[in-house]
């Protein structure tokens, strides 16, 4: 299972999840030269561990305006009505859906287990992996960055929510 397979699965999953569940379209991939500018203070990030073949982690980061827009589209509400808690919950759900979709594409006959999506606080980095594939896409009100990597990370015990 290679990085190219993961990369394609990540692209397809992000595009499909945004289109079907958030009624949003990606506007092409962000080039390397445009990557700067997503300071942690202006973004919301979520980390999600998974176990399977392989195990690893996914890190998702959304600019604040994009996160509010995504949450509004998902919940069918106006952006101004959405609380920070609702935004956090929807962004965790987004990470969960993208991760599950990627893993289902790359190991459809195997089993995997997703951990609990965790909000990463400003100044904190997502855990690293042995290798990482990254997909950055502009949205109408900001930018989404998703990284997924294989490593030796372990999920927390399956006693908590994994939405």
């Amino acid at each position, binding site marked *: 299972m290679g990085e190219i397979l993961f990369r394609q699965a990540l692209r397809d999953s992000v595009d499909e999840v945004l289109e079907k569940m958030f009624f949003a379209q990606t506007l092409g991939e962000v080039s390397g030269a445009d990557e700067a500018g997503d300071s942690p203070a202006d973004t919301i990030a979520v980390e999600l561990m998974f176990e399977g073949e392989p195990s690893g982690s996914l890190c998702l980061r959304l600019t604040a305006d994009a996160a509010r827009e995504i949450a509004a589209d998902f919940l069918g509400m106006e952006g101004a009505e959405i609380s920070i808690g609702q935004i956090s919950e929807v962004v965790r759900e987004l990470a969960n859906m993208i991760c599950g979709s990627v*893993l289902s594409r790359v190991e459809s006959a195997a*089993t995997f287990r*997703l951990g609990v999506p965790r909000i990463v606080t400003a100044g904190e980095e997502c855990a690293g992996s042995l290798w990482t594939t990254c997909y950055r896409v502009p949205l109408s009100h900001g930018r989404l960055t998703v990284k997924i990597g294989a490593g030796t990370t372990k999920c927390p015990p*399956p006693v908590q929510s994994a939405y």
Partner: protein
Amino acid sequence: MAYRVLIVDDSPAMRTFVRRVIDMSGFEMSNCFEASNGGEALDLLRHEWVDAILTDINMPEMDGQEFLRRLSEDDVLRSIPAIVISTDATTHRIAVMTSLGARGYVTKPFLPETLRAELERTLGVPCG
């Protein structure tokens, strides 16, 4: 005919989304009940009858697998069609949930018409 549907998911946002998608799809729903895990759902089913159950798998307290197992052991509740909604599209997981009594399986992400079609199929609603 309008149906009574129970949505079981630990994410309030996901429950809101599923309810919204059912409305968007045009599926006729008279009542929509919600529970945040299998245990809450079983409590609710002791005093509310529903026509269909939509359940997540990964939930605290009682997950979707255990919930389906409990439903299958109940002489009355086992007749209610349960549809799993999950990000996990692996053949193994689908087989496990089907063996526990799931009559349908919808993988996230999904379109409103996909959920409607699965609800109608499991409820035996005539096409058209």
